[in-house]
């Protein structure tokens, strides 16, 4: 149970923080931090077990048929990430409290941050790869929300869309890869997949699966050539960058590499793809970072470069490389998060991040400057800091690999070059910002940041130092247990220590530092050289290709979708005709074996009336009132047909619905023209007659073929169990409220949604109030005939009584909630017709929306109620009671469900008609308050 709580608490925190809008900033921050703190404490309590080699699991069955569970798993790797996500997350929340201005919505940022935290926690702890993918996508979506936090800025919107497009696209590739992986192994369970290395790597699909999964990882972790979204995502507020783009979001791709390392790594194709991608990203990022004038731009490219370094380590064919990669994950998260936060302070206090303006900040903010310099030194890999240790390990591993055969010596050289570039851009970060003369027209007079804004940076920098000086003490446990998880069950011999003696890696570090400083002092020439190159912006390429794709689609769509509904419908009907008609030609015999029933005179007359009605509707379709009246004849004959063919419930429903429908359409005619103009050309009429005749013939044939064949139905079950299992003898009603009660619940929801949609459509309707009909005759002045008014009033109680009776007997005889609801609605509509909406509104103030809501709520809670008796959703209960004078009656929980149906039907029907009817009375433009 405990593991589920970690992401759940974070999700809860997201909801809590979204509701802190009315509280002060400190209260809001405190409440937001509460849940992650609890989650962190829980994680700490679990840590000793994980360090000792246990894997904690927690599984809930979700869709067992598809092998999809809600499954969590905490091993060393997951533990490391959970610590980073919660720890840095807490610092970022605290930091953001001082970073945000009073114009920015704090609850919004916190809610998004916590949602993102939930996604990350779920991702790293998933033990089911489908669930893992779900959380993966959730990180993309929540980071989209975070990047576009300042939605009024175009660059924030564009950056967010770009990040979503790239990482979301990678997510699709990942899904495909994971599905393939699940198919190869035969399970989506991570435990099983990680133990099936041999099966996976021997399979024909291995290459495809690997490439798809790597695509997901590389897009997320901004690997070259998918890196371009990351610099544009810097439009996010700096706390967001500190969290997403140093410690979490971009590390998700790295996490994926580490997670699947035991199952996928070890082949040549893995080593080549992963190491070369990492190497090119490492060099490219480090080189570009040097030329960025924007502080966050520099950090973004430096992040790309460091992510490349980690990827490269995962791609090296030595066992210790993976350990070094994990070590660098930790180190990069700490120093990069603190650098982002320091940049935020500089931006906050000076109003700019441009290094050409920022100079000599040491004088104004010595304290922040010291912290930033230590962190930047860690980034450069200076001894006594954590960055130095992992860089040394990295250099060592580059010397031990055999990746490129006889050309393997290239890799340590290139690694040293990248190291020199890192020193150069770190030196630039320190020297350009804090020294290098006086500031150039800053927007704000700089000063030191608020005391507490620096606390998170102090903590992170202290960590950099502690790891750098006492690595064995601070980092050993977690590093070992994470390596244990990544390497699939064993840890190679290694020792993290500050001093390994004079050796080749130390020499490489020395060359890197010296080379980097040299590069920085000679940067003028480099900048000139860079300026002479043609400017290349990946954003333009991205935008261009998106535009091109959009235009291409637009052209294709315009061919099919030309805006004519008649054409679409015609095409749909033709397709239906082809698909429904074709099988008929392959059938040998249309009529089946069933004994035909003879036609009697009643049926013949009914059918004739129905046909006359239908044909008349079509013939007079231009004169709409006549056509509508003819349609009502058809509707009545349909309900007669239901009566005739043993379906009394349907007949009652059809009859009442018919009344309501015709009233509604009559009302509608008030707002619409009463006549249709003659528009269709003769050709079109012939074409349409052809299509409709053909469709009619096909449907009639299918219907005939169907009803002349013997019936094999599952209904015997319902007939046999209606009385014993559902407690009613009207099987149709028992099916509705009991056997298929869940369907009915869905259906009344649809009814409610339709009514609400109608309500919304009628709000603020610009009225075309006709004062006369289309022939110029004014509407009758006498609106409410006296005779109708007095009769309808006395009819109301009678009708209500009838509907009550129909409702009560519904379980055993034809009737029930639907029919009773319609009868009640008709009774009320009659009052509206006879007296008008105003008269009703004076006497009865009803909010139909609330009625619909309460109806659905009653039905829903009747279903939920069965949970309290440990039964599945919507199990019904019934019993018989003997009451004096009344006799034996049956009480069933299905009856309460039916009350819900009844109330929803009444509310929805009345809302639809009363909303529209009211408009005919109120010519003023005002909101319809029904």
């Amino acid at each position, binding site marked *: 149970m405990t593991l589920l709580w970690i992401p759940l608490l974070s999700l809860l925190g997201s909801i809590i923080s979204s509701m802190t809008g009315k509280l002060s900033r400190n209260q809001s921050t405190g409440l937001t931090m509460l849940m992650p703190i609890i989650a962190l404490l829980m994680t700490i309590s679990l840590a000793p077990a994980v360090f000792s080699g246990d894997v904690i699991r927690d599984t809930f069955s979700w869709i067992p048929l598809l092998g999809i569970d809600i499954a969590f798993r905490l091993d060393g790797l997951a533990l490391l990430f959970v610590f980073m996500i919660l720890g840095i997350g807490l610092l970022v929340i605290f930091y953001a409290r001082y970073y945000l201005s009073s114009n920015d919505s704090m609850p919004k940022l916190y809610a998004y941050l916590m949602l993102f935290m939930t996604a990350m926690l779920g991702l790293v702890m998933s033990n089911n790869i489908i669930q893992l993918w779900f959380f993966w996508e959730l990180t993309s979506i929540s980071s989209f929300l975070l990047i576009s936090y300042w939605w009024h800025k175009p660059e924030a919107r564009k950056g967010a869309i770009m990040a979503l497009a790239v990482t979301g696209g990678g997510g699709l590739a990942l899904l495909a890869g994971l599905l393939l992986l699940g198919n190869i192994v035969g399970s989506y369970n991570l435990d099983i997949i990680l133990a099936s290395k041999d099966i996976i790597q021997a399979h024909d699909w291995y290459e495809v699966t690997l490439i798809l999964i790597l695509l997901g990882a590389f897009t997320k972790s901004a690997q070259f050539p998918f890196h371009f979204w990351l610099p544009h995502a810097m439009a996010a507020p700096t706390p967001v960058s500190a969290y997403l783009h140093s410690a979490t979001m971009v590390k998700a791709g790295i996490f994926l590499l580490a997670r699947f390392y035991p199952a996928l790594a070890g082949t040549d194709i893995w080593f080549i793809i992963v190491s070369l991608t990492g190497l090119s990203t490492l060099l490219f990022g480090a080189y570009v970072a040097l030329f960025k004038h924007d502080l966050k731009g520099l950090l973004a490219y430096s992040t790309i470069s460091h992510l490349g370094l980690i990827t490269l380590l995962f791609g090296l064919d030595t066992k210790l490389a993976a350990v070094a990669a994990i070590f660098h994950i930790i180190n990069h998260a700490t120093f990069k998060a603190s650098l982002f936060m320091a940049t935020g302070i500089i931006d906050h206090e000076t109003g700019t991040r441009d290094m050409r303006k920022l100079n000599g900040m040491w004088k104004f903010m010595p304290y922040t400057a010291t912290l930033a310099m230590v962190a930047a030194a860690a980034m450069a890999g200076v001894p006594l800091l954590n960055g130095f240790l992992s860089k040394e390990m990295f250099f060592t591993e580059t010397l031990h690999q055999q990746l490129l055969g006889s050309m393997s010596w290239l890799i340590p050289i290139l690694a040293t070059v990248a190291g020199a570039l890192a020193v150069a851009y770190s030196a630039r970060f320190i020297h350009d910002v804090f020294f290098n003369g006086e500031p150039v027209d800053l927007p704000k007079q700089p000063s030191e940041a608020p005391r507490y804004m620096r606390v998170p940076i102090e903590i992170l920098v202290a960590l950099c130092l502690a790891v750098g000086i006492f690595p064995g003490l601070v980092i050993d446990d977690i590093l070992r247990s994470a390596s244990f998880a990544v390497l699939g069950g064993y840890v190679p011999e290694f020792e993290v220590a500050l001093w390994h003696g004079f050796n080749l890696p130390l020499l490489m570090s020395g060359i890197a530092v010296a080379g980097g400083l040299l590069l920085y002092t000679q940067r003028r020439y480099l900048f000139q050289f860079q300026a002479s190159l043609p400017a290349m912006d990946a954003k333009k390429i991205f935008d261009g290709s998106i535009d091109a794709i959009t235009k291409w689609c637009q052209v294709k769509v315009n061919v099919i979708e*030309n805006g*004519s509904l*008649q054409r679409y*419908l*015609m095409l749909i*009907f033709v397709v239906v005709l082809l698909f429904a008609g074709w099988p008929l030609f392959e059938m040998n015999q249309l009529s089946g074996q069933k004994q*035909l*029933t*003879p036609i*009697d005179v009643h*049926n013949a007359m009914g059918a004739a009336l129905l046909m006359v009605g*239908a044909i008349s509707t079509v013939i007079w*379709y231009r004169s*709409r009132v006549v056509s509508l009246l003819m349609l009502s004849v*058809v509707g009545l004959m349909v309900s007669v047909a239901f009566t*005739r*063919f*043993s*379906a009394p419930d*349907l007949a009652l429903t*059809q009859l009442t*619905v018919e009344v309501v*429908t015709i009233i509604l*359409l009559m009302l*509608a*005619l008030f*707002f619409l023209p009463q006549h*249709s*103009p003659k*528009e269709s050309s003769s050709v079109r009429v012939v074409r349409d*007659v052809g*299509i*409709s005749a053909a*469709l*009619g013939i096909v*449907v*009639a*044939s299918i*219907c005939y073929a169907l*009803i002349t064949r013997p*019936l094999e*139905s599952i*209904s015997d079950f319902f007939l046999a169990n209606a009385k014993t299992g559902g407690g009613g*003898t*009207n*099987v*149709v009603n028992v*099916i509705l409220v009991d056997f298929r009660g869940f369907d*009915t619940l869905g*259906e009344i929801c*649809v*009814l409610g949604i*339709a009514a609400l949609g*109608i309500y919304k459509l*009628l709000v603020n309707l610009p009225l*075309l109030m006709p004062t006369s009909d289309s022939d110029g005759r004014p509407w009758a002045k006498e609106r409410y005939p006296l005779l109708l008014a007095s009769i309808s009033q006395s009819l109301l109680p009678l009708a209500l009584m009838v509907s009550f009776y129909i409702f009560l007997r519904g379980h055993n005889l*034809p009737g029930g909630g639907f029919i009773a609801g319609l009868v009640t609605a008709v009774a009320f509509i009659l009052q509206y017709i006879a007296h008008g909406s105003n008269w009703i509104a004076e006497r009865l103030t009803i909010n139909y929306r609330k009625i619909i809501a309460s109806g659905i709520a009653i039905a829903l809670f009747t279903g939920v109620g069965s949970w309290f008796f440990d039964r599945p959703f919507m199990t019904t209960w019934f019993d018989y009671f003997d009451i004096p004078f009344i006799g034996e009656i049956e009480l069933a929980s299905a009856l309460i469900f039916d009350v819900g149906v009844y109330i929803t*039907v009444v509310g*929805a029907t009345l809302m*639809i008609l009363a909303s529209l009817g009211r408009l005919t009375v109120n010519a003023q433009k005002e909101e319809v308050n029904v």
Partner: protein
Amino acid sequence: MELLYASCVGLLVSCGVFLILRARTFTVVLGLTMLSYAVNLFLFSSGRLSLNQAAVLGYSSEYADPLPQALVLTAIVIGFAMTAFVVILAIRGRSDLGSDHVDGELPDENKKVKV
């Protein structure tokens, strides 16, 4: 009788489809209503036609198939809700667009394909 029933369903489909293919919203709504009659009758008939066999236990020796009836019952009610929604949409469309043509505007013969 089966033949007659099937012909009625077919005729309703034909009339409904023809009306739906017209160019004015109200006619389309009439057509939709007609088509939903046809669909309901069709679905209902999948339980086969039977006389005097209402699915109420204890009133006859054999019973009509109750399952299609239950399905059609809710279909009728939802059909009403949908008809209502479409007709109100038509009213709204006419108010906002000034025309009750199904395309929201009168078709112009010379108009080029919209881009």
